[in-house]
């Protein structure tokens, strides 16, 4: 189970990523088909080679789509976040695991953004901007819009004084 105080992302995020994955797989497959097809036509390959190529293309596309379909579920299981008085802590990563701490006092400003697929599922991405270099912005995707807005309000500078 999750450690103390940690929240999971919105379960709908899995579906959003699966749709995005299918679209990606579709584009990659189309580009590959175009490339392989024109190559085959230009070289004038035999029917057997062409059949083999089509088979390989089908298998590759299916494998990619399958992988992009199952991966979001695994990623979801490994992603969580916690907002406490000290700041925001984000954990993610299946193979390469990461824990990112953004102290409350280091938040410069925040964005809540929505892509088209996210919007259709009522999800948002929270982006926290810091003065850092590598982590100049830390994104937390997969939040329901209400949660994202609530997190944003809690992350805004509390005392209203300009810390800079």
């Amino acid at each position: 189970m999750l450690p103390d105080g940690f929240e999971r992302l919105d379960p709908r995020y899995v579906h959003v990523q699966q749709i995005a994955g299918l679209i990606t797989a579709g584009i990659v497959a189309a580009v590959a088909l175009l490339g392989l097809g024109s190559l085959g036509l230009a070289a004038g390959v035999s029917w057997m080679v062409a059949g083999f190529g089509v088979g390989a293309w089908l298998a590759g596309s299916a494998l990619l789509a399958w992988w992009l379909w199952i991966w979001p579920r695994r990623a979801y299981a490994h992603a969580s976040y916690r907002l406490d008085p000290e700041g925001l802590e984000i954990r993610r990563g299946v193979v390469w695991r990461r824990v990112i701490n953004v102290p409350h006092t280091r938040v410069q400003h925040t964005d809540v953004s929505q892509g088209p697929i996210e919007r259709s599922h009522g999800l948002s991405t929270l982006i926290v901007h810091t003065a850092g270099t590598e982590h100049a912005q830390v994104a937390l995707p997969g939040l329901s819009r209400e949660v994202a807005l609530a997190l944003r309000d809690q992350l805004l500078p509390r005392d209203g004084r300009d810390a800079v």
Partner: protein
Amino acid sequence: MAVMPSNQRFHPLTVLFALGGELRNFLLPAVFATMTASRGNSVERFLLVFLVPGAIAAVARYLSSTYRYDPTELVVRTGIIFRNERHIPYARIQSVDAVQNVLHRWFGVVDVKVQTGTGGEAEATLSVLPFSALDEMRQRVFEGRPSESGAAVLTPSADGSAAEVIWPAPEARTLLHLPSRELALAGLLDNRGWVVIGAASGLLFESGVIDRFDGWDSTAWSLYATVLVGLFVIAPVLSMLWATVRLHGFSLTRRGGDLLVEYGALTRVTATIPLRRVQAIKILRGPGHLWTGRASVRVETAGGSPTGRSATEREWIAPIITMADLPALVASVLPEADLSALEWHPVDPRGFRRRRNRALIWAAVMGGATAPWLGGPWAAGVGLLLALWWVLSARLYVRSLGWARTDRVMAFRSGWIRRAVTVVPLDKIQVVDLEESPFDRRWSMACLRVDTAGAGAHRIDIPYLSRPIAEGMRVALAREAAGTTFRW
């Protein structure tokens, strides 16, 4: 302010320098045109076509660019068709840099760059202003910072002198002044001469001189050897000369809450770095530095480019310094960073085993890959040599890694050929980040990273930490950062 602030123009010579810049851009095409043109007048036409619009644009830009000092901000207006008015609050100004090349000095003008915390380009480039305007700008900008006096009180100086609390009109204290001998040594240790030789050979190649040689003449090996040896002698000499000229009269001064860096024989650079803007201090030592007991020191300010290379070299606060003087310099720049008080902890010793295993696998792969060409015994020799070297360097590298934490700073050191130490005040930490690769998890280790507003080439990125230590440090550093207010 009772008097209404008035807009000021740049120095009239702005036009000339803008034109000069334009000319330099077109110099190469112009030379090319000269070489390819059959008659001279085409060159004149070429210059006319490009220079006349350039001149008109330069005059228009000069006439439309003004700046003024408002009570709390610097206002720079530019543009004719698309007018732009930029307001830069004094409190946000990171530095006021001034560059004077030979021509600037001849005419008594100066190129001024005003920078705030955003990365990349300077916020305002005032090119060129009369020299007297620079002093005025410094005064206005630094007086206009209401919080500065507070900051000056808060940062006690190393020797606790009372001059630090008085603002404005603080006393200047020279922290470092480098004689030519030290600068030559710095040049030798940097060894930038190869860059010059590389550029020169590139130029020779471009101009076609190289083409006159009829290929590689195997009988002339002694000539080639002489040239090669000559290069090895010339490169260091060039480096030394270059450093002595470029950094001539290098001085680092502390005035109130600011560091003042000045150097240059031909191009004179004057830079100010507000001390509270210092995000990290870095001490770098190459093999030559170890041999001669020297180090070079730089500071990172906010707005360094994320690629690791800084846009300017103004952050070098000491191109070279003896190890004996180093602690005092660091203490006067970052009082909380007492180098002698740092207690260095090694990383997990199992890190060596991980690196060694990787080295052995790679050596075997290399040996196997070269076997078809070299034959068994020789390939085995190659593999063995590589294994020896890689294992040795793994040992030295892991041993060089270390971290230290006091209640005010976090420090990280790495490298055995080129050693680097980075010290970051805890209140400058932006984001703390723990990473575990699959290999890390197998060994129960982790990598801890600390992000600051001015991360340069060497940042706090500690590999091979045992997991509990890394985890504890992550929690502690995040808590420490959350408990302090970040001030640019």
